[in-house]
């Protein structure tokens, strides 16, 4: 890799120059944290903090009010905690719970990429928060920023043995692609972990890191719960006789678009080949490096791997990769996915352990008047000796429960009424919403705070049509970035402005086809008016086992999207 010249830098987007000047992600973060006049970081540091897992936000509900009061926005921080493959221990779970109540807004957010998120941390509490997270052997570095993010892996409790192997691979990839810089320990942990003072270097990333975020997921068929095709890089586990042998490799997934900019489009990854399990790290590293060297650093809206691929062609990519590997990937092995959802409730695993998958609406763990979810999970963590698993659908699995403990944990689930959650409608249990207001700075419309009420109104329509047992994947995001993978919903909503959404239809049930714009910029009344007849007709005219997403295409509501480039066509 060759470092950029000043000339080249000037052509690049501002963030690139910030990275360049940051001395491996230090910037002026230390000074920013100490500035007593503002609850915010210096502008450039708000870019760098992301690499440390920290986003600056403000409570958008209060913005106007505080502006009038001559107070700066209520600046606060989002901290994203990496949980590779979503697996964490009860004691880690308890630390997260404590911090959420000590420094944050008394909630924990399970994300669509199997991570924890805190919201509402004040600048002066950031350091203690990050320190305590690391003390419990979790971290936040590279949870955000132009680097590889938290590596996802199907939590898959019923095939414990296969999962153990695949999960270990996911952790290795996660570890292998974690930045080398000592800035993180220096700034947040007062250097405790790093003895040597030798200058930083980033053998994989280089000092400019990647042109854009980079996402990796590992799926264990038949579950596609991690939505593998939404990721820049994916590994589909191939097993023989319940033993892992290798992975099919997928590249070029990415879902985000920008309203009014057709040159931005979502794209599902292509399967480009198969690699034996011992090659995985090498393959991952080389693909990251290709994107590092060829990704577009002059336009962030065109910087993801999906564009590098479409600009240069998949064949070019394969050649480039094989060159760098010094060998070629084998032909992909056959695989089949059956769904992207979670299956709720108790399931038996091997070696007589049990696990309980709990539906958590939009991933938000909190205590409310009549549903004390946060306390319940704390109580469970206090006695649980197995582990917890975050799913890519914002849900939680209480895994590796011994026969002996099952009764006790089930008791708590009953006592706190958590079992009720799994009795929610099938529609709701197959829905996801991103965070959006009040914390997300990019939100154009409500999402997490609105989807529940929209569902209240859709459920009767579904029930009236006799579809109450029919799973339909429904996803909502407050803007076209698609954090809840809205373009992979059989029904997808993307926010346009307060109370206004674009309606998308026709993704398929297994996450292997994008949906398509059906109606633009419509309000709730219009949403219900548009969907009701389609739902009723689906009930009457669907063919055997025909999924909603397939039905709307057969009956011509929308055309099937076969390639990201036709998304807008």
């Amino acid at each position, binding site marked *: 890799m060759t470092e950029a010249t000043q000339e080249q830098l*000037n*052509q690049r*987007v*501002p963030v690139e*120059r910030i990275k360049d000047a940051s001395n491996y992600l230090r910037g002026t973060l230390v000074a920013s944290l100490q500035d*007593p*006049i*503002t*609850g915010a970081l210096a*502008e450039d540091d708000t870019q760098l903090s992301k690499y440390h897992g920290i986003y600056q936000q403000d409570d958008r509900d*209060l*913005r*106007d*009010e*505080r*502006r*009038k*009061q*001559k*107070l*700066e926005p*209520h600046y606060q921080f989002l901290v994203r905690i990496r949980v590779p493959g979503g697996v964490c221990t009860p004691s880690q779970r308890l630390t997260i719970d404590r911090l959420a109540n000590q420094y944050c807004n008394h909630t924990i957010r399970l994300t669509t990429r199997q991570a924890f998120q805190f919201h509402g941390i*004040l600048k*002066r509490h950031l350091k203690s928060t990050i320190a305590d997270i690391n003390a419990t052997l979790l971290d936040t570095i590279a949870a955000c920023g132009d680097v590889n993010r938290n590596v996802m892996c199907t939590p898959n409790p019923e095939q414990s043995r296969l999962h153990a192997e695949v999960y270990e691979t996911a952790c290795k990839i996660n570890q292998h692609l974690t930045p080398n810089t000592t800035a993180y320990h220096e700034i947040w942990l007062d250097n405790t972990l790093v003895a040597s003072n030798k200058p930083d270097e980033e053998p994989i990333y280089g000092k400019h890191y990647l042109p854009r975020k980079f996402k990796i997921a590992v799926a264990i068929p038949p579950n596609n719960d991690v939505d593998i095709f939404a990721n820049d890089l994916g590994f589909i586990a191939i097993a023989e006789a319940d033993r892992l042998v290798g992975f099919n490799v997928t590249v070029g997934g990415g879902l985000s678009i920008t*309203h*009014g900019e057709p040159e931005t489009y979502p794209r599902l990854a292509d399967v480009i080949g198969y690699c034996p399990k011992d090659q995985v790290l090498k393959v991952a590293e080389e693909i990251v490096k290709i994107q590092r060297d060829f990704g577009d650093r002059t*336009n962030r809206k065109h910087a993801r791997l999906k564009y590098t691929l479409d600009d240069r062609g998949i064949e070019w990519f394969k050649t480039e990769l094989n060159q760098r590997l010094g060998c070629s990937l084998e032909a992909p092995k056959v695989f089949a996915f059956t769904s992207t959802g979670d299956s709720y409730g108790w399931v038996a695993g091997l070696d007589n352990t049990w696990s309980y998958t709990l539906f958590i609406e939009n991933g938000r763990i909190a205590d409310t008047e009549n549903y004390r979810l946060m306390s319940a999970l704390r109580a469970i963590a206090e006695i649980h000796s197995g582990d917890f698993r975050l799913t890519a659908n914002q849900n939680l699995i209480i895994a590796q429960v011994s026969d002996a403990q099952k009764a006790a944990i089930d008791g708590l689930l009953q006592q706190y009424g958590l079992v009720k959650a799994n009795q929610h409608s099938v529609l709701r249990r197959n829905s996801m919403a991103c965070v959006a207001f009040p914390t997300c700075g990019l939100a154009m419309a409500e999402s997490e705070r609105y989807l529940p009420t929209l569902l209240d109104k859709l459920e009767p329509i579904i029930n009236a049509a006799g579809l109450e047992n029919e799973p339909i994947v429904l996803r909502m995001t407050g803007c076209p970035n698609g954090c809840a993978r809205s373009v992979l919903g059989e029904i997808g909503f993307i926010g*346009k*402005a*307060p*109370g*206004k959404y674009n309606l998308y239809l026709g993704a398929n049930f297994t996450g292997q086809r994008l949906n398509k714009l059906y109606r*633009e*910029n419509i309000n709730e009344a219009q949403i219900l008016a548009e969907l009701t007849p389609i739902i009723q007709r689906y009930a009457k005219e669907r063919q055997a086992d025909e999924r909603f997403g397939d039905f709307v295409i057969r009956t011509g509501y929308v055309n099937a999207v076969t390639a990201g480039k036709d998304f807008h066509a």
Partner: protein
Amino acid sequence: MPILLPGAEQTPLNAEQHRTAQQLIVGLSPEQLAWFAGYMTAQIVNNSTLPVNDLTIAEKHDAQITILVGSQTGNSSALALQIQTLANKRSLNAVIQHMEDYPLTQLKSAQFVLVIVSTYGEGEPPDNAKELYEQLLSKRAPSLNQTHFAVLALGDSSYEFFCKTGADFDQRLAELGATRILPRVDCDVDYEASAEAWMEDVLNALSSRLGAGAQQSAISAVPVFKTTASSYSRKNPFSAPLLEKIILNGRGSIKETYHIELSLENSGLSYAPGDALGVYPSNAPKLVDALLQALHFSSAEAVVIDAKQRAIGDALLHHYEITTITRPMLQKYATLAKLEALHQLLDDGHKEAFNVYCYGRDIIDLVTDFSVRHISPQAFVDCLRKQSPRLYSIASSLKRHPDEVHLTVAAVRYETYGRRRKGVASTFLADSVDENHPVPVYIHHNNNFKLPNDPAAPIIMIGSGTSIAPFRAFIEEREAMGATGKNWLFFGDQHFTTDFLYQTEWQRYLKKGVLTRMDVAFSRDQEQKIYVQQRMQERAKELYAWLENGATVYVCGDEKRMAQDVHTALQTIVAAESGNKDSAAYLTLLQKQKRYQRDVY
């Protein structure tokens, strides 16, 4: 998206310059660029070398064309730069002003205004335009018959309220008497073409109006305040209409501090920073009713005050003090009442008992504890003390806010003897004063709390809570004068998040360099309480250095709860840093030289 220059051929630059310019530009944020453009124009127009801040730019160079921008994601800012370049090429003199730091009053004297603004949310202005937008649409907006304007609206036609903000500006400016140079243009997301067409048309129109040598004529962007003798005084207070009342404490604060803006228009009143405003309060109507009830008076009964006949209800509301019991008052009442217990309370033996009784009690308590039969309304009011005005440090500079006076008022509320009680004047301002109830005021000049005559002299300001008020006036004044002296502010309150009074204004001053440094102490954000005097101690070395360099120290605030401790802190600091035991003498000398001024209450 980096901002790109038009091709070299479309600019006055040669290829080499064009390249360097582009390099520089890519390195700057739109805000930095806007400043740069504005400043450079300013320098060329009057090759002045004054300290740079928006006001001095606006003041010093005769901005003939003001490009007023409201932008959320930078499109409008980019267009503003583009048209500025084009204007300057036609040797028209144009300055970019961002709506967030553009005082409405400045519009009055702006001659040609080009508004470029986008629309957000559902037909709302961009965040940085909201304040100006609200002011402009409010009824306090000035008439603008000097102004000529044109509006370029950015938007997205897929939204219901397409380009609404631009439309509102366009309509409102016309309503206020400004002349439209040409019809508004609404741009969709593909705005480039229509925007450039608009620029062309506007500039043609302006060139023909202004012709060559456009730079000569001069209009000051900041109206200069003229002092005129006023007929209003403490005896004859001016009824000042309320312009604005804002509670400065954020949600969750236990403080209740108001920012109050009153109009002095046509009063002829003028003041200097450091002066205070006298306010004549009225009592709370509920309290008056309760008192009348306790006395079995009807509010209509007539009494004579200063040879004028009035209804007692009205008299108690506006003319008498009914919340504090004073000794003379009690004496008069006692003679009426002929109550043994009262006389006892009054005799010198029982001073302590007297104080205890009066503290936290009011006249209602008195007339219920010591009720009297058949007392006449007249006899009763004759016992009372006339309502006394309260003083409030003025928080504004006339240079920045012509015809206005601003206050920072803490509402006094407390409970004693099972009744919730309210400070008369502070809650009169907080609860009763509104658009329809003007405030009787007069100026209380205070020559012992004044900025140094030398605009280059450094100053140190120390205040907490509402005592920040005069320092807001100081800084506004120094900025407006373009004073070069360094300014250091110490401020303290309870919580950073909710009680940082005028936070965004201080941040702006720091950014512009008007405020040299600011140190804050928020007492309740950590285990152990921290106050301003601690911050002073931490900065002892610099602080002493400033004093040695001729700085004047200003302390404002509560004698008991703050000024004392600050004085002691100053003594310790001087002693420690100078090695001079007699730090008291040092401070006394400062005081003699008027370099240590206090405004304590």
